[in-house]
């Protein structure tokens, strides 16, 4: 079943790319290979610089595929595997690639303007201000949601020692490349080997016992700090959350060549090994029966679960893979300024989005093919409506261990590679986000509070907010909120594209209706989540920390929903103006 699900997804993705995407690119947007792009017109060798389509495809894919296409589907399987797969396929086919591609084209045809500038130009000055404050909370939710998953991953006994050695190997790679000027191939071989040995050492019993001892430092065997209605809050989340944020802090404040870039470079090889190895594992297991490939989770479980109703909550739980607002930021601020030809936008943006959908379906396969480990410990609790019993990272680690073992990699090592794979993908985005939050606080508050101009202060304040969320809130709730903010951002990007197309006198329905769907769905999801958070905060016998976490989650959800409604109102007025201009324009021009 796993193989056929992957195969059907790939076939649909190819059909979507071949027919629907082609039609839009050639007939509606009319991409012109001869039109000068901002990368060529404003080439400054820094922000605007043409790059080949293949390079940009890799850049776009790496920039958009973080935790979203993995953790979202694993969490959403709690409604059944079929709704998750259907949303991924339908979402990417009609909405996901549309947003990524159209926002890149819009930025290209507007001199490489970013989302802030485009909102100012096409909606209103107020829209730009709301967008930027919206963005800060959205990024804070990314930090909280990703931080919680990374903390869970690092708490797995086989992961942290390997991760630490991989980080040191990355720092060594930076030293070898930029200071000692050594050959890149030699640097790669040496540092990847060191990292591989480190990951293997991390799976040794002595290394695991160190991590278990740290996890148990709360004073009881399970390391439980306090209980919540969603399960125990563990000391390990606090400890490893701090470690993850220290890593992110270094990535944010150290020179890029010293830490972030070489660590990401060394990790890249393990990410590739994980993706290629596990897809091969699924294919081989289908024909040899080496490990279970039948879905153990039912196709459909129930409309309601502890996170809320299937509509709208599932549609925000799975964001990346189906559609994600983050991609519009990458497409406008990054890719649109580097595209050499307009015709490259389709393979780069739509191609990367479709590929990400396949990765997300792979995550569904990992989740749905095992509800318990070989040792009997439960992953999804069948007696309790298939509720997730471990962190999403735990499911991914176990899935990768199973499928990598099919291609000959020992299960412990495969699991450690899976954990590091996911942690690195999350931390790469977290470093970028923290860097942005530091710049944003300096820009927005630096004139009033001079301390914010110091990069360390801006970073530490953002880290303090993140820790507050991480330590007090329920990670699945934060994940849903993050998904809501993410999808709402996508709705805003689609709104902007609609107004741009209407101003250009082009057909806009293919963007407008997906945008309406995303707006309605995400505002509903945010309001439901805010209500659930407030209810949990004021429930009797609530632990103080849990109350704080739920209050923060509820307030952020409410703020995002209100900001979205104001933006929608301003956007609707701009669209009406553009439509009346369109109606008044002489036809056939």
């Amino acid at each position, binding site marked *: 079943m796993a193989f056929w699900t992957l195969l059907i997804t790939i076939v649909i993705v190819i059909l979507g790319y071949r027919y629907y995407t082609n039609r839009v690119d050639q007939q509606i947007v009319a991409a012109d290979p001869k039109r000068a792009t901002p990368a060529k017109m*404003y080439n*400054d*060798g*820094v*922000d605007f*610089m043409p*790059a*080949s389509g*293949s*390079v*940009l*495809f*890799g*850049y*776009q*894919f*790496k*920039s958009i595929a973080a935790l979203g296409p993995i953790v979202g589907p694993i969490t959403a399987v709690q409604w059944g595997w079929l709704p998750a797969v259907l949303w991924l396929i339908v979402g990417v086919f009609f909405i996901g690639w549309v947003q990524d591609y159209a926002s890149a084209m819009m930025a290209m045809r507007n001199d490489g*303007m*970013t*989302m*802030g*500038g485009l909102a100012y130009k096409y909606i209103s000055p107020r829209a730009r201000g709301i967008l*930027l404050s919206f*963005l800060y909370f959205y990024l804070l939710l990314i930090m909280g949601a990703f931080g919680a998953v990374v903390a869970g991953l690092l708490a797995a006994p086989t992961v942290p020692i390997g991760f630490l050695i991989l980080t040191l190997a990355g720092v060594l790679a930076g030293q070898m490349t930029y200071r000692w000027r050594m050959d890149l191939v030699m640097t790669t071989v040496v540092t990847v080997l060191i990292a591989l040995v480190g990951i293997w050492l991390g799976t040794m019993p002595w290394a695991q016992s160190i991590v278990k001892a740290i996890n148990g430092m709360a004073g009881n065997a399970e390391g439980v700090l306090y209980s919540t209605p969603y399960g125990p809050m563990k000391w390990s989340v606090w400890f490893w959350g701090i470690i993850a944020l220290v890593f992110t802090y270094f990535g944010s404040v150290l*020179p*890029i*060549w010293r830490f*972030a*870039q070489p660590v*990401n*470079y060394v990790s*890249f090889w393990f990410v*590739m090994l994980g993706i290629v190895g596990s897809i091969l594992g699924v294919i081989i297991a289908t024909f040899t029966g080496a490990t279970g490939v039948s879905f153990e989770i039912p196709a459909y479980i129930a409309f309601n679960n502890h996170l809320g109703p299937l509509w709208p909550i599932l549609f925000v739980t799975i964001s990346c893979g189906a559609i994600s607002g983050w991609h519009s*930021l*990458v497409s*406008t*601020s*990054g890719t649109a*300024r580097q595209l050499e030809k307009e015709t490259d936008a389709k393979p780069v943006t739509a191609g990367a989005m479709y590929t990400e959908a396949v990765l997300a379906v792979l995550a569904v396969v990992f989740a749905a093919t095992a509800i318990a480990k070989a040792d009997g410990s439960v992953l999804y609790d069948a007696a309790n409506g298939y509720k997730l019993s471990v962190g999403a990272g735990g499911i991914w680690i176990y899935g990768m261990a199973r499928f990598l073992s099919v291609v000959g990699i020992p299960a412990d090592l495969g699991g450690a590679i899976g954990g590091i794979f996911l942690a690195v993908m999350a931390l790469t985005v977290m470093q*970028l986000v923290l*860097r*942005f939050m530091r*710049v*944003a606080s300096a*820009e*927005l508050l630096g004139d009033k509070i001079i301390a914010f101009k110091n990069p360390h202060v801006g970073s530490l304040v953002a880290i303090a907010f993140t820790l507050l969320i991480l330590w007090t809130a329920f990670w699945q709730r934060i994940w849903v909120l993050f998904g809501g903010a993410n999808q709402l951002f996508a709705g805003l990007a689609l709104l902007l594209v609609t107004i741009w197309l209407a101003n250009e006198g082009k057909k806009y329905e293919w963007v407008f209706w997906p945008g309406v769907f995303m707006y309605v769905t995400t505002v509903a999801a945010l309001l439901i989540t805010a209500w659930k958070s407030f209810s949990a905060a004021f429930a009797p016998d609530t632990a103080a920390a849990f109350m704080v976490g739920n209050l923060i989650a509820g307030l952020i959800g409410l703020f995002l929903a209100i900001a979205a409604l104001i933006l929608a109102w301003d956007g609707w007025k701009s669209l009406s103006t553009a439509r009346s201009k369109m109606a008044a324009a002489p036809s056939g021009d």
Partner: protein
Amino acid sequence: MTEEEKRSLIQKIKENLSDFIYGMASHEATRQALKTRGSMEHLFILITMGDLLGVPILPPYYSLRLLPYVVPQISTWKRRMLREKDLVDALA
């Protein structure tokens, strides 16, 4: 398909694959390095050629002596300085 066409196809696949790997592994870092270099260069031009913006930092004697080395950068510098910037640029 002739032998030559086959070779050129294989060559093209190899190039695209290596471009893709470079794009995933290192392109962003390259951009960041270029940004850092660009910022340092612009700071240098501001110090040496501040007169162009009405900010005379160095005495004109030194600016004149450095002018030949800075000339190739001036058009790019002006373009970057005059471009409307947005906070979201920090995410790129």
